[in-house]
């Protein structure tokens, strides 16, 4: 919408077509499972069928004897070789200062399994079919133990314990904010609005299942791991320091083309470690590729919160305070970033885009006999947004105020920035009223009644839903996250190599698995150096080629990785200035770099960038005493603050009151994601996030039964949104530039998934309001909606009966 710069064909702001597309369109992408090495062998895992069981014995004799089998490994082999457990990357301390419960996480089970899918044995054979067949021959003597599969049951007295030694299922009991201030705010409130919400457990479902291919080169004592990762250096670091115990220079981790991640491919998984280790044991490369049903049982899931929240308001509707109590499911083991999600990525966002003078949040993280829960697109921020936006809608109903106007009244005003929230963050800039107005215009709010009547004529109930949201991304200032328990820094790195004839290769620590960095980063180079994007190549995903960087998640690549590139480019431009000054026989102070040319200020004497690059590598006429030859610079960038994208998401739904089917018929959003490099790609990121957010609101839910059995772990049962389930989207942007990074970028990867779920549910509740329905949980499935309608009808019917009748 407002973001296109049609005139521009190269640098920042140009909607240029993606450089990476051609190989994907030709079927020539190189995903991990596409890579088959000479002498390749194949691994299949034997996994627990129980949520909780003692393993009395594992008999591998028949499997070992099967045709094509090279080896069968169990927890005993892993322990004997001293492989480390999978570490957690974040330490959260409880209210009382105590460390979180941090249980061991062995790569293969050590006598006990704690979720369906927990790996017990690894079968390696010369073909996948042989490995699969032999896996069926591994005999496991299980002794089933009581299990707890659901968050709501895990804190009940007498609930089965995931970790006996922890004395309960609480991983940590943490809080944020000022309880006394908040109590005082509530004491003086004219209105208090209360809500209980569940944030449903969902599976990230990148279309490419995870895969890993490990190759140990005995001659050079060197490991190579191909893996479906969003952050190969992080994987190498964790394997070097914690799991495989080999020094970094002996381990190369390559994340080639990766088919989507959405968080699920951040984490270090046991299979990565095991294929590398097993390759050494069997003397051949070992490849494992997840099946989809295996992915449902073993990839980290997202969300799974239960919360109670209360909002205090004065008589005019001004927010006074917020209290939140949340239970967050961790699963059985702590995945890499799991403890950070319901704490520093959740509670810190509970002020939303609102001026909220008092906030107190308590979060208990809970173990269950389920696979780990960790970051999924949005990670903590969708949970905060959902809770707040459901609560604000409820407040508007309770106070009889217009939902839009209640928000408008409480949004942080532009002149309040920088705005210090009561939950630790300082928002640098934004204009939430501008995105609200932009979205309302795109939605055609004025025409709503006509549309509602038209829906009604077709027997459908139309509803309008709104969500105004904020998120924190551009993760993250290292010192800050270090103080909060992160065990790694979260800076980013880049190397810019200008070649002698002026083309450029950029080596970035971020990773692209759909985001289009090969294009957008090239646009940064084009903008700064004046070269064509065609003359730029972006290298990522290979620890032997790229500098040590932290990878891609938390909408950080452009804001943090892009800033590292800019820092390196600034060094290149500065060095070029000295070279150009020499060639132009001028003082460096008199030389400026404009439109790809070094020019002596106020004259027409100039050298093209390419000429300067050539001089740097062929330094015949060169300031050799003061300037080194070559034109290659590296930089690390550690952000000063998070970035704070925000905006307004508006949804209209139609509900079929007979069947309960909800159809999303209109989506209009306006985001402020900061300065935009490529509007085509930014819109595409928003679209994808919206689909996942609508998926969570209406279609998706991972279901474990009370005993921890996964009951919908295939695409036959887990409903992924399809093309026919979604409308086209109206996407707009209003830009306020981030104040603390050189490009003014905030980040766009997660906005759709964060903003839209409450807008969908608020729209459903708006549609059902005339029938008396006041609450519904995600996903708003047809039967759930139908039942809510029936219950409301029944309640209305009972209310109209004369008192005493039927009592």
């Amino acid at each position, binding site marked *: 919408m407002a973001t296109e710069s049609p005139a521009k064909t190269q640098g920042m702001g140009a909607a240029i077509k993606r450089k990476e597309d051609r190989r994907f369109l030709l079927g020539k992408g190189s995903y991990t499972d596409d890579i088959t090495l000479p002498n390749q062998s194949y691994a299949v895992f034997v996994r627990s069928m129980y949520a909780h069981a003692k393993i009395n014995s594992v008999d591998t004799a028949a499997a070992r004897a099967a045709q094509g089998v090279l080896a069968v490994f169990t927890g005993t082999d892993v322990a004997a070789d001293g492989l480390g457990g999978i570490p957690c990357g974040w330490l959260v301390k409880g209210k009382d200062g105590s460390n979180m419960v941090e249980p061991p996480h062995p790569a293969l089970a050590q006598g006990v399994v704690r979720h369906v899918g927990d790996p017990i044995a690894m079968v390696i054979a010369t073909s996948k079919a042989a490995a699969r067949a032999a896996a069926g021959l591994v005999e496991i003597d299980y002794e089933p133990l009581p299990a707890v599969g659901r968050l709501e049951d895990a804190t009940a007295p007498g609930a089965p314990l995931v970790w006996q030694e922890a004395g309960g299922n609480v991983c940590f009991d943490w809080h944020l904010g000022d309880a006394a201030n908040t109590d005082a705010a509530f004491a003086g409130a004219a209105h208090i609005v209360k809500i209980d919400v569940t944030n449903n457990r969902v599976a990230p479902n990148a279309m490419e299942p995870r895969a890993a291919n490990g190759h140990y080169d005995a001659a050079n004592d060197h490991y190579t791991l191909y893996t479906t990762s969003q952050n190969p250096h992080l994987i190498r670091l964790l394997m070097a320091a914690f799991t495989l115990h080999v020094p970094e220079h002996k381990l190369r981790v390559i994340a080639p083309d990766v088919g989507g991640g959405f968080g699920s491919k951040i984490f270090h998984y046991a299979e990565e470690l095991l294929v590398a280790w097993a390759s050494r044991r069997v003397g051949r490369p070992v490849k494992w590729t997840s099946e989809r049903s295996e992915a449902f049982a073993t990839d980290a899931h997202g969300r799974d919160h239960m919360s109670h929240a209360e909002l205090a308001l004065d008589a005019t509707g001004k927010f006074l305070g917020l209290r939140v109590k949340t239970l967050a499911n961790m699963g059985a083991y702590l995945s890499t970033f799991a403890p950070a999600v319901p704490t520093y990525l959740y509670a810190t966002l509970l002020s939303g885009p609102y001026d909220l003078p008092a906030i107190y949040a308590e979060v208990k993280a809970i173990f269950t006999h389920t696979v780990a829960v960790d970051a999924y697109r949005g990670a903590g921020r969708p949970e905060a947004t959902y809770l707040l936006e459901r609560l604000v809608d409820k407040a508007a109903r309770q106070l009889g105020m217009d939902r839009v106007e209640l928000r408008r009244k409480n949004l942080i005003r532009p002149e309040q920035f920088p705005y210090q929230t009561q939950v630790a963050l300082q928002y640098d800039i934004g204009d939430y009223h501008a995105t609200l107005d932009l979205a309302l215009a795109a939605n055609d709010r004025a025409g709503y009644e006509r549309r509602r009547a038209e829906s009604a004529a077709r027997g459908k109930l139309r509803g309008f839903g709104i969500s105004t949201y904020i998120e924190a991304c551009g993760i993250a200032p290292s010192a800050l996250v270090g103080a909060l328990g992160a065990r790694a820094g979260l800076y980013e790195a880049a190397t810019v190599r200008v070649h002698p004839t002026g083309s450029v290769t950029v080596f970035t620590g971020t990773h692209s698995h759909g985001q289009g960095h090969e294009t957008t980063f090239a646009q940064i180079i084009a903008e700064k150096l004046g070269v064509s994007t065609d003359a730029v190549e972006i290298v990522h995903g290979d620890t032997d080629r790229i500098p040590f960087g932290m990878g891609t998640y938390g909408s950080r690549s452009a804001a943090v990785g892009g800033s590292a590139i800019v820092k390196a480019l600034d060094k290149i431009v500065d060095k070029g200035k000295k070279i150009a000054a020499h060639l132009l026989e001028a003082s460096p102070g008199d030389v400026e770099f404009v439109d790809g040319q070094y020019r002596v200020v106020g004259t027409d004497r100039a050298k093209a960038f390419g000429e300067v690059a050539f001089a740097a590598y062929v330094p015949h006429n060169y300031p050799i005493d003061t300037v080194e030859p070559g034109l290659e610079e590296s930089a690390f960038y550690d952000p000063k603050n998070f970035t704070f994208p925000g905006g307004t998401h508006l949804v209209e739904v139609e509900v079929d009151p*007979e*069947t309960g089917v909800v159809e999303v018929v209109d989506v209009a959003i306006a985001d402020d994601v900061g300065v935009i490099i490529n509007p085509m790609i930014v819109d595409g990121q928003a679209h994808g996030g919206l689909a996942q957010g609508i998926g969570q609101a209406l*279609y998706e839910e991972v*279901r474990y039964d009370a005993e921890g059995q996964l*009951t*919908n772990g295939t*695409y*036959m*049962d*887990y*409903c*992924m949104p399809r093309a026919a*389930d979604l409308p086209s989207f109206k996407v707009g942007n209003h830009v306020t530039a981030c104040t603390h990074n050189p490009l003014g970028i905030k980040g766009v990867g997660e906005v759709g998934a964060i903003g839209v779920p409450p807008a969908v549910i608020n729209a459903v509740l708006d549609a059902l309001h005339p029938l008396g329905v006041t609450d519904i949980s995600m996903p708003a*499935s*047809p*039967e759930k909606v*139908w*039942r809510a309608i029936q219950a409301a009808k029944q309640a209305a019917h009972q209310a109209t009966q004369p008192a005493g009748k039927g009592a």
Partner: protein
Amino acid sequence: MKPFELHRPSTAQEAVGLVTARDGAKYLAGGQSLLPVLKLELAEPSDLVSLARLPELRKITAAGDAVTIGALATHDEVSRSEDVARAIPALAKLAGAIGDPQVRNRGTLGGSVAHADPAADYPAALLALGATVVTDRREIAADAFFTGLFETALGRDELVTAVRFPIPKRAAYGKFAHRASKYALVGVMVADTAGGVRVAVTGAGPKVFRVPAFEAALTARMDPSALDGLTVPAADLNSDAEASAEYRAHLISVMARRAVQALA
């Protein structure tokens, strides 16, 4: 998949002979139901006898008062057949809403009927239209064909060669698809046939079934409101995470009314 031998005979007789001679053998038509079952190792046939080389079983013919569809006609072919569209448009529409396009390009009428998935669409059409299943050795009325969950009246080596659908005065199919699998959570076909009004329900129970109460009401008055207040007892219906028996019972009434509406 567990190992099996694959045979690709070129006559129906040869195909039957291969299955007759091998206890563990199964026919393979389009494979859209069977291959997923084999991949999950829920069945372990010793031999698969492919029907791909039997083009004579693909023919669709409309003659007199019936449309006869060869067992190997794909859902796509049925959905696009002019003969079917002219004679029984509801059947063409039903075929065009099975699964997804790729499944319709491979999946066959005979395969679906023989597999007798309780959530498949075709069984509703067979039962509502009073179709006849033609096999290599006999003819079986639809009312006698579907005997249980994934069970039919077919002998172990009996080959479905065609299904003969009497042309109804009018018919319509209302489908409420399972949102993930696209199978019928509830599918109701209402047909006004020479032999009376027939209502068949798929997806909701362990096998496709008729609803005499609906049929009687619609015989009296072919109008959606004729079904007001009529329901199928939930106790006999499937219940799962996607839909409880109670909800399925409700959907049967809704889909039946909508099918009747579509007849007009």
